[in-house]
């Protein structure tokens, strides 16, 4: 894959995160808020008929993305799934490209060809076949190991995807060939309409251990705790160049896709109390939180406005790719404002 020589930190979430000199909690809150507001806005746009097709939101799981992805650096690979907006926004920090993609515009992440289930941005990939990409990401990690690059790969899958056979072929090979691959299982306790007790026999963590892969679990929606937890795991995968399998117990607070939530109300309410943004907001003063919320709001709105102005693909775009637009000027000033805050 050819990339322009000077790409700055475009594929380096860790460098961007570390360069932002604000306190850890402030940064985590802002990233999660961006995911949350982006998706809430998305759902509104669907409601208003402006968006077409489907989407899978990440509401309730934001802490997972910020906990893991802020440790990834240039050259590291992410393979994610249908529920990828949060992962993408932390990795790429380009909400306008994702919004344009969801609006089917030619300047979207993949020019409208894939939609959010099928995107590629630098070393970030997603696919909509549950578990089907596990061999690909294993091969990517193996290639990086053979090249001696020191890069690692991270795969995000859901609890329901533990039912997919090809996952176990991939885990077996990842262990046999000791590839630097972190598999993050986001157990949000549901797969579409099916609760985990009806889809999964046995235990999650021992699935990883059965292949001789280090495996563990964490039951938390605390972004700071997750950030610390995955800092250690990712350093180990990188240094020891071998796989790790980690389960995060969390909860999805939104529909599976759109208007298809038939889960018991009381269960949702119970989990709502632990939702990551309430806890994270309490880390900050109300003024700090409001300033961040206002900036996020402005960013999301700018992304919507910009996307609306973008052209739809024409027949020539069947075979032709439009160059990725430069980051919105707006974002640069937003970040500056952030550093002042």
């Amino acid at each position: 894959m050819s990339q322009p020589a000077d790409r700055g930190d475009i594929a380096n979430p860790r460098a961007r995160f570390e360069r932002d000199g604000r306190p850890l909690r402030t940064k985590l809150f802002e990233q999660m808020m961006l995911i949350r507001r982006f998706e809430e806005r998305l759902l509104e746009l669907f409601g208003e008929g402006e968006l077409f097709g489907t989407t899978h939101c990440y509401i309730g799981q934001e802490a997972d993305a910020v906990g893991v992805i802020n440790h990834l650096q240039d050259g590291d690979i992410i393979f994610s799934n249908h529920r990828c907006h949060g992962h993408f926004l932390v990795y790429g920090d380009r909400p306008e490209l994702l919004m344009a993609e969801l609006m089917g515009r030619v300047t979207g992440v993949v020019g409208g060809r894939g939609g959010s289930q099928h995107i590629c941005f630098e070393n970030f990939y997603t696919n909509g076949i549950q578990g089907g990409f596990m061999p690909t990401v294993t091969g990517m990690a193996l290639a990086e190991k053979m090249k001696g690059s020191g890069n690692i790969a991270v795969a995000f899958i859901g609890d329901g995807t533990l039912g997919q056979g090809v996952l176990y072929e991939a885990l077996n090979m990842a262990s046999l060939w000791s590839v630097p691959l972190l598999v993050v299982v986001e157990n949000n306790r549901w797969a579409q309409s099916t609760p985990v007790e009806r889809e999964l026999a046995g235990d999650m963590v021992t699935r990883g251990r059965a292949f001789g892969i280090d495996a563990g679990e964490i039951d938390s929606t605390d972004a700071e705790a997750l950030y610390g937890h995955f800092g250690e795991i990712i350093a180990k995968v990188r240094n020891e160049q071998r796989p790790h399998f980690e389960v995060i117990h969390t909860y999805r607070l939104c529909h599976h896709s759109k208007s298809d939530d038939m889960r018991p109300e009381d269960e949702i309410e119970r989990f709502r109390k632990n939702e990551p943004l309430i806890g994270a907001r309490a880390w900050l003063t109300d003024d700090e939180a409001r300033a961040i919320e206002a900036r996020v709001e402005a960013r999301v709105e700018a992304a919507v406005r910009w996307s609306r102005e973008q052209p739809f693909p024409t027949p020539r775009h069947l075979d032709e790719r439009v160059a990725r637009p430069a980051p919105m000027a707006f974002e640069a000033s937003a970040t500056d404002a952030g550093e002042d805050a």
Partner: protein
Amino acid sequence: MSSTPATTTVLKSLNGAMHSMMEADERVLLIGEDLLDPYGGAFKVARGLSERFPERVLTTPISEAGFVGVAAGMAMRGMRPIVEIMFGDFLMLAADQLLNHISKYRWMYNDQVHVPMVIRAPMGARRGYGPTHSQSVEKHILGMPGLHVVAPSVLHDAGALLRAALLDDLSPVVFVENKLMYARRQLSAEGGRIGELYARSSSDRYPTTTVSWEPFDHADVTLVAYGGMVEIAMEAAETLFFDEELVVEVVAPSSLQPLDLQPVLDSLQRSGKLVVCEEGTAGAGFGAEVISRVSAEGFSLLKAAPKRVAARDYPIANTRSLEDMILPQVADLVRACR
């Protein structure tokens, strides 16, 4: 087509190509089941590779979907993997990898990636291996946008095709080999002749070779064949020429997807009569595609209804007598060409 001596077998040609590519290019690697020496793969095509390049020959668990996908990931990160599927029948275990992953990545990701890899799959029957080890399943993967399907025959330089598929073609390629063909000698043309036959080839990356008993001034039938059926088609053409004075041009494409129809149309200019053969079953197959395209692109050339010769609609039997009844034979082709 000239680099390999006429006496080389298809197996030696493929094996030699893998040796030379791995020697010259660090990105090239081989992945599949039971590849390590001294075994060297079920059909010995990988022989000697693991001894010379132990780091780049990965013998795998029995995980066809898994290792086909692993190879795709490696290809997307700069390697040039060759996958060996032990028996072509097992390719369908990786069907989802082909359909929803490998063939789609490039376009779906807006041309930001390529997946340059080759999946070698030995197809074909006539060895008594029975229903699940004898099929020619390539028709099931024809027509997948983004996936190329290449099939050498004795009229091609198999090693050169493999090299082109891996190093010159950025698309993923399924490379259809034929088990009986491994032991056959490649027939290369010299001065437009292969022995007594007249021969011509298109100059593509994946050439189509056409042979005839006459110097392409007249023909009675255009017989399209690929892979293992090419030899059978050539036998039928010989029989018809010497016994019945019918001139049958055998047109052998090496690329099934995409398919260059021009050599078929060129031959039809002379013959006006089309027969297409394949070792798999006929329904929704290669022959159906050729006839459909000829009808659309060269209808006026046809002087007779086109015909297909293919396997009958049964699984491939284990016992020789039933296997012979099910598979297309020289006699079937002779009859169809009359």
